[in-house]
């Protein structure tokens, strides 16, 4: 399922970083955004919308649209495109049942 992995990063990447997404370890490299760490590991959606539980991931990529909201180290509503990964960072998608009542559908997960 991982169409493009962190191995596809352009050359000259120093420093490997491991983060977790919903408890699953992901390897990425220093200087990536959380959004990049997820997408380059094949995770394209990490949030369901409130009304129709539609999957969402990156869209504007520069902090304008808020589509890519994610919980980071227990802090909810962070823009994945703006937060830089740090070793051991815990990332959680907000379609977790304890976060939002419509979750249960795994529509957004690939």
């Amino acid at each position, binding site marked *: 399922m991982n169409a493009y992995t962190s191995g596809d990063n352009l050359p000259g990447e120093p420093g490997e970083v491991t983060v977790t997404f919903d408890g699953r370890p992901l390897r990425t490299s220093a200087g990536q955004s959380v959004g990049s760490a997820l997408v*380059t590991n094949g995770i394209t959606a990490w949030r369901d919308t409130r*009304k129709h539980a539609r999957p969402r*991931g990156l869209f504007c990529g520069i902090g304008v*649209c808020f589509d890519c909201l994610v919980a980071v180290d227990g802090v909810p509503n962070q823009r994945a495109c703006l937060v830089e990964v740090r070793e051991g960072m815990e990332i959680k998608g907000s379609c977790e049942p304890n976060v939002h009542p419509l979750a249960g559908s795994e529509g*957004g997960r*690939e």
Partner: protein
Amino acid sequence: MSATVPGIVEADVAVVGAGPAGLAAAVSAAEAGAGVVVVDAGPQPGGQFWRHRPETVEPNPEGMGHHGWRTYRDLRARFDAARHTGRITYMPGQQVWMAEKADAGFVVRTTPTVTAGLTSGKADGGSTVVARRLVLCPGGYDRQLPVPGWDLPGVMAAGGIQAFIKGNGALPGKRFVIAGTGPFLLPVAAGIAEAGGEVLAVLESSSPKAWLPYLKPAAGVPGKAVEGVEYAAVFARHRIPYRIRTIVTEVLGTGRTSGARTAKVDADSRVRPGTERVYRDVDVVGFGWGFTPQMELPLALGVETRVDADGSLVGVVTERQESSVPGLFLAGEVTGVGGATLAVLEGHTAGASAAAAPEPAAKLQGLRTTARHRRFAEAMHRAHPVPAAWQDWLAPGTTVCRCEEVTAGEITGARDSLGARDARTLKSFTRAGMGWCQGRVCGFAAACLGAGPGAAPTIESLSGAAKRPLAAPVGIGELAALQTTDN
């Protein structure tokens, strides 16, 4: 959420934004002798145009794939030099959530872009900047038009794809389709190809013929033609098909983007039946329909506005880049989208004006160059318009407002049966533009839908979409601290 009482920073000139316009403004104001504070939402200078890998990881970026990198290096060296002498105080990672006029000038309130504790950076609370003069260089972002399926993951703003590559040194997918209008689609596609991605097609809704009436202003900025030739070479090398008068009519996929249905359009941008085609195994569809200037701060301060040739709401400025609000200067995309070269020129003028510098010797030459670039920008807007018939491409169920999930049918229904013709009324009836992004993404489209097919949105409707009580989300602690400070 931090509830620290904000620190107060004072300066002669405050500059908001550290992109091409903001860097130039800061450097010019500082070199003219002013004490300058630069507030920027990004973690390092450069803005979107000169976005680059984190300098913690790549300390001396070479500017691969960047245009005008030498200009950036020059501005950056002068910016850093002025920081060392204390002329410039640089506040990265801080977004402005409120700007007000005060007796002595302006008050700008900031909050960290990324919540405190999640960055290694120093800033862990908000600040209040008090300055005699204010230069706003907030830039812009991709303008979007809705299309069926555009809310699927894998659909990205064209500029978002470019930002992803520049900032992360990685690709958000392997196979791309890029669509919309304007020359900006070219560097996006070229950047993908140079980074090792496959661009299945670049779809341009307009036609090169649209440039014919504007050859004179185009020839006035020969550098742009050189850039065009460079992109043509990249397209040829990577065999990227460039299809004109073609649009994406639907993004295909379940749970994520898997393909794109396209069609040819006629000169009036109406879909030509029988010209459909499907691209399969697509990871990312990138859309760009020009840019939306980030107008909330100028509007909050009450500047006079106009609708530019591309349909964007922009601020009216004098030759010195001063807005209708005395002491408030605007530079870059908020005075009319025109690219980085123009933004730098305007930034220099705005910074020097804000520092009340004596008229520079090169002023006339600078103004002429600025005027030439403005004429080029206008020609570009007219040659690459938002397609007149784009509203016909929508289905009633097409999502327009992504945050509140409001459909085209709900918006046109409110327009036709409830008389909601402007963005503000549409907000109250449908909630379009009421969610997290506050209409930044759907504002233009919703204003057009309210105005009706073929009608251009008005200053009032565009302002209604861009006027926001708070320019960025803030914690309740900051609002509480605000009251204490003011009483």
